[in-house]
C-alpha cells in the first residue's frame, strides 16, 4: 500500500515526542527516509530528496535538546517544500528545464520560518512546471503518481507536496495555490490543504506565477497540523511588499469549539445545477458535509455567488497575463538555461524556447495576447471587473454567513493522460477553487469520505478575508464528522 498518511504520527505528535525526549529527531528522520526509499520510485513525489542534509539537521536538533536548549514547535518534524520555493544553495527548479541546476542565493521566508521552528526539510516536491497545471503531468522531470492509485494523478499543481504527505513521506508539506493548486491535490490525495488569505503568508522566495493570486499554504493529515503550521508561516514579512502587515491569526484557538449557531452558506452555483460537470458522488459528499454541520448545530442555508460562474473565464485571462509578465525574467542572462544565439535577442529566444514546456508557452502566449494593444480592455480589463463583482458578491454573502461550503474539485483523481490533450478540460478542474483566488479570501479542503471509485473526496470551506479562525473551526468539525484523520 502506497497511501499511509501520518505513517509515523502527525506533526504535532512528532514535535511533542521529540521535544519531550520520547524519541529523537534523528530516529524520526530515518523512519521517513526509509519510507521514501521504499516508495518514491513508484510515486515520484520529489525532484530532490535531501537525505544527508536532513540527517545533519536532525542531529543538530537532537544536540540542542540534549543541551537543554529551547527547540521550536515543529522540532524534528519532516517537511517537504514545493520546488518553486527557494532554498539557499539547494537546487530549485519549478520542474522546468529552464531552471535545472539553479541554486538560489537566498531562501524563501516560509522555508526559514519552518526550519527556525525546528522542522527538517527532507525534499523538494515535484509540480506542474511553474505551477501551471492540475495534475503534475506538466513537470519537465516526469509526472507524480497518486499514492492511493498509481494510475491516477495526484492533482496539481502542488501534486508532489500532496503525494508526499499522502504517502507518509512527511506529515507536513507546503504548496502554492494560484487557482486551486493546494486544495485540488489535497482533495485528490485525501488530506487537508489550505489556501490562506492573500498576503497572510509571505511569498518572498516563492517563484512568482500570478502575483495577484499566488498564496502559499500547508498540506497535512489533520486540521490541527495545518493550523499549527499556518501559525508558523503566516504573519507580516517586510521582504514581501504584498504581505499583510498583521501577525499570524491564532487559528488553533477554536478547533474544539464546535459549530453551534454558526451560519454556513452552501454555494448554490456549485451544487450541480448551474456549474456543470461536477460528479454526482462529489456533490453527494458535499451535501453530506452540509448535513453533518447542521447536525452539529450550525445553521445551514443555500446562498448564491452568481458571478462565480464566470470565475474560470476571468482567471484564465488574469493568471496568464500575470504569468507572461513574471516569466519574462527567464531569458538566459542571470540564471538558468542559456542556449547560444548570434545576438542577445536570439539567445533570449533560443533559451526560452528550449527551456519552457508546452503549457507554460501556451499561457505566456495567451497572456501576451490578453495584454496586447487593442485587446487589453476586452480581456484583462474585463476580467479584473469580473473579479470585483465576485468580491462584492462574496462580501454580501458574508453579511449573512460565517463560512461558505462547496465541493473542492469536480471529481475524484482522474487517470493519468486523461486530460492532457485538451487544456480546457484540465482548466475545468479549478472551477470551484478559482473564485477564492480571484477574491483573495481563504479557503481549505478537508477530506470527507470517498467516491464511487473508492478514492478520496474533499469538501471546501470558504471564509471572508482574514477569516481563518472560523474556517479552521468549521474544518475541524468536518474532520470529526468524517471520523477523524484520514
Amino acid at each position, binding site marked *: 500500500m502506497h497511501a499511509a498518511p501520518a505513517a509515523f504520527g502527525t506533526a504535532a505528535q512528532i514535535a511533542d515526542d521529540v521535544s519531550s525526549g520520547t524519541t529523537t529527531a534523528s530516529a524520526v528522520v530515518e523512519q521517513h527516509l526509509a519510507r521514501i526509499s521504499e516508495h518514491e520510485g513508484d510515486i515520484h513525489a520529489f525532484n530532490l530528496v535531501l537525505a544527508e542534509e536532513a540527517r545533519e539537521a536532525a542531529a543538530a536538533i537532537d544536540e540542542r535538546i540534549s543541551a537543554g536548549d529551547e527547540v521550536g514547535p515543529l522540532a524534528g518534524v519532516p517537511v517537504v517544500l514545493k520546488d518553486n520555493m527557494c532554498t539557499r544553495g539547494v537546487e530549485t527548479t519549478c520542474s522546468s528545464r529552464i531552471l535545472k541546476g*539553479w*541554486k538560489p542565493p537566498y531562501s524563501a521566508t516560509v522555508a526559514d520560518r519552518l526550519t527556525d521552528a525546528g522542522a527538517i526539510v527532507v525534499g523538494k516536491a515535484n509540480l506542474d512546471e511553474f505551477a501551471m497545471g492540475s495534475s503534475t503531468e506538466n513537470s519537465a522531470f516526469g509526472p507524480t503518481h497518486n499514492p492511493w492509485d498509481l494510475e491516477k494523478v495526484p492533482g496539481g499543481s502542488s501534486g508532489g507536496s500532496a503525494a508526499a504527505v499522502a504517502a507518509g513521506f512527511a506529515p507536513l508539506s507546503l504548496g502554492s495555490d494560484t487557482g486551486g493548486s493546494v486544495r485540488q491535490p489535497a482533495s485528490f490525495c485525501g488530506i487537508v490543504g489550505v489556501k490562506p488569505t492573500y498576503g497572510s503568508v509571505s511569498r518572498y522566495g516563492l517563484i512568482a506565477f500570478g502575483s495577484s493570486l499566488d498564496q502559499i499554504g500547508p498540506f497535512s493529515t489533520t486540521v490541527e497540523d495545518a493550523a499549527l503550521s499556518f501559525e508558523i508561516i503566516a504573519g507580516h514579512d517586510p521582504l514581501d511588499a504584498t504581505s499583510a502587515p498583521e501577525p499570524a491569526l491564532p487559528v488553533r484557538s477554536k478547533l474544539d469549539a464546535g459549530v453551534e449557531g454558526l451560519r454556513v452558506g452552501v454555494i448554490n452555483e456549485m451544487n450541480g445545477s448551474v456549474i456543470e460537470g461536477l460528479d454526482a458522488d462529489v456533490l453527494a459528499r458535499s451535501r453530506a458535509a452540509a448535513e453533518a454541520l447542521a447536525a452539529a448545530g450550525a445553521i445551514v442555508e443555500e446562498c448564491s455567488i452568481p*458571478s462565480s460562474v*464566470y470565475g474560470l473565464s476571468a482567471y*484564465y485571462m488574469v493568471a496568464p497575463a500575470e504569468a507572461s509578465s513574471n516569466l519574462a525574467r527567464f531569458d538566459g542572462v542571470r540564471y538558468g538555461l542559456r542556449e547560444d544565439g548570434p545576438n542577445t535577442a536570439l539567445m533570449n529566444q533560443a533559451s526560452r524556447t528550449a527551456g519552457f514546456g508546452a503549457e507554460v508557452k501556451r499561457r505566456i502566449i495567451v497572456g501576451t495576447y490578453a495584454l496586447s494593444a487593442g485587446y487589453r480592455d476586452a480581456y484583462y480589463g474585463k476580467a*479584473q471587473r469580473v473579479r470585483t463583482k465576485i468580491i462584492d458578491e462574496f462580501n454580501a454573502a458574508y453579511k449573512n454567513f460565517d463560512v461558505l461550503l462547496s465541493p473542492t474539485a469536480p471529481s475524484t483523481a482522474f487517470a493519468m493522460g486523461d486530460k492532457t490533450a485538451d487544456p480546457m478540460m484540465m482548466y475545468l478542474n479549478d472551477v470551484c477553487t478559482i473564485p477564492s483566488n480571484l477574491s483573495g479570501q481563504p479557503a481549505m479542503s478537508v477530506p470527507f469520505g470517498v467516491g464511487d471509485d473508492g478514492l478520496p473526496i474533499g469538501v471546501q470551506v470558504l471564509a471572508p478575508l482574514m477569516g481563518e479562525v472560523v474556517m479552521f473551526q468549521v474544518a475541524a468539525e468536518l474532520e470529526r464528522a468524517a471520523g477523524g484523520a484520514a
Partner: protein
Amino acid sequence: MSDAKEPHLTREEVAFVAHLALLELTDEEVDQFTWQLEEVLDTADAMTALDLDGVEPTHHPLGFTNVMRPDVVVPSLDRDEVLAQAPDVEDHRFKVPAALGEQ
C-alpha cells in the same frame, strides 16, 4: 465552439504573439496552440454576458499601494553567490552576446 463565427486568432497571429514573447514555435505547435487558444478565448467571451458598467477593476485583493520601507541601507545578496549561478560572467558582470548585429 460555433463553426460559423470568426476565429479570434489566425495561425499567423499565434506565431506573431509567440515571437513578441520571445518564443519560437514549430509548425505543429502553431497548429495545436491555435485551436487551444481559441477555446480559451471562447471561454473568456462568456464574460460579455455580464453587465460590468461602472464596475471598477480589481488589481490586487488587498488594495495596497506604494508599500515603502525606511530608507536605510541593509545587506543585500552576496554578489559572488549570485554571479556563480549565471550562464556567463566577465569582470563581476553578467555577460551576453552582442546586443546589436551578430557575433
